[in-house]
């Protein structure tokens, strides 16, 4: 049995999803010869630390009952630096101004010899090269499957399954909220504002929706793709971004009369990065509905490969994180 110790920084929807997924997969992991031991969990109010392994079930109930996982006040950075473990999982909120607290967590983790797994886009969209170098310099793994398209394994597909191929272009729908709004506007001939309100009521959209509907979230994901797959060193500022706020039900109807739908499409082709509403033929593999995400990858050997699936959700996102954790556990 290989014991892999983990710190879980952030205990919101995704953090708790990771904990409950690890609990439900305990037997499977045992069969794989992997013992995942959580030695530190934090939220914004404090932390729980136990070098012998935290009782995840108790941690989840405490968070539900009291609003915090905290049993002590060790900070995230103190845990990362001073509590012995192999993998730091950062699932703190995405911040696109300075990437904090995720950026500091990740750099400290690499400095302390911890592998990093994350779903937090901010640090990667702002400082991808720096993070990647920090990982390489220290001979550590840096895995971030969950940052783009939730459960959909884009990076695994390109780096592992399609190894040897040259990727010549990628197009995708990477924001579930926008896809939901456009789908509802098309199906119900709803005005934009009403569809947005519905998305907010269903919990798909934030109270301040600009980040999603303005195309910013999609652009961040595109930047991570460009860095990871094309190694371009691009940042958020290199993306030409147009959101969906000006789309009318009439435009969607005109598109539909001509066998097309309008989607917020991310595109990395010929060195340019673009997020914009685009016309997609109804039968095209990119034309997925609801909150689904999709990525279509053009390669030199395999041709075009398209994968779609759930782009968000606590368990779905935890699926990608668990897969990254297992990858590292098998390789250390």
């Amino acid at each position, binding site marked *: 049995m290989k014991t892999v110790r983990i710190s879980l920084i952030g205990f919101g929807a995704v953090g708790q999803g990771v904990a409950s997924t690890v609990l439900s997969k305990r037997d499977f992991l045992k069969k794989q010869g992997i013992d995942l031991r959580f030695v530190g969990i934090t939220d914004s109010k404090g932390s729980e630390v136990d070098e012998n392994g935290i009782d995840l079930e108790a941690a989840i109930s405490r968070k539900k009952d009291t609003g915090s996982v905290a049993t002590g006040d060790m900070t995230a950075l103190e845990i990362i630096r001073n509590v012995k473990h192999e993998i730091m999982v950062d699932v703190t909120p995405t911040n696109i101004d300075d990437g904090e607290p995720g950026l500091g967590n990740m750099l400290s983790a690499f400095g302390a010899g911890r592998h990093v797994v994350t779903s937090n886009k901010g640090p990667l969209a702002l400082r991808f090269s720096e993070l990647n170098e920090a990982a390489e310099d220290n001979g550590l793994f840096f895995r971030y499957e969950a940052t783009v398209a939730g459960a959909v394994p884009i990076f695994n597909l390109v780096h592992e399954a399609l190894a040897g191929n040259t990727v010549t272009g990628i197009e995708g729908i990477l924001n579930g909220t926008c896809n939901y709004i456009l789908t509802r506007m098309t199906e119900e001939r709803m005005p934009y504002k009403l569809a947005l309100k519905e998305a907010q009521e269903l919990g798909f959209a934030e109270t301040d929706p600009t980040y999603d509907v303005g195309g910013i979230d999609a652009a961040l994901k595109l930047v991570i793709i460009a860095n990871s797959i094309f190694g371009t060193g691009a940042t958020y500022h290199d993306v030409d971004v*147009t959101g969906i706020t000006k789309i009318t039900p009439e*435009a969607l109807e*005109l*598109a539909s009369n001509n066998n097309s739908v309008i989607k917020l499409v991310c595109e990395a082709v010929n060195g340019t990065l673009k997020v914009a509403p*685009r*016309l997609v033929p109804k039968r095209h593999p990119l034309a997925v509905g609801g909150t689904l995400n999709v990525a279509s990858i*053009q390669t030199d050997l395999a041709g075009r490969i398209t994968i779609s699936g759930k782009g968000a959700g606590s368990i779905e996102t935890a699926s990608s994180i668990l897969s990254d954790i297992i990858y590292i556990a098998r390789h250390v």
Partner: protein
Amino acid sequence: MIISMTLELKDIPGQLVLALEPISEFQGNIMGVVHQHEEKTPRGTIPVQVMFEIEQSRLAELTERLEKSGVRVARVGEERLRSSVYVILIGHIVHSDMGDTIDKIDSTGFAEVVELSLSMPGIDKPSSAYLVINAVSDRELDKALDILRDVANRKELLLIETIRLNSGGT
């Protein structure tokens, strides 16, 4: 109309100018010339393909003039608009003079707006328009789209283009 003409030139200097001058004289708008030096005809002449736009009424006269000056007109054909693309525009399209936008594309001679559907929900509300543009080739289509992008940009219209269907292919 757009004409594609195959001419046969004698293999001596100055022949290309001799062939192209009359086209301009008859107000033809030359769009492309393909000169195949290596491919001589059995008659020893050099075939050249010229694509140009010209008034239909002047075509016969032009052909006659070319033949008289010793340029053999081997083939004359009307070039159809082969490439096609559709786009959607959203915004205050009517106020922004859609006619002017369409004219800009039509007046290029190599591309044309062949279909337009407009949906106007209310006087102060943004309208939506569906446009189909045809052009002689993909390259010309791209140029027409550039014009549209520029107009949309200046008039603050949202231009929704089709995804590239074969993007990045090798």
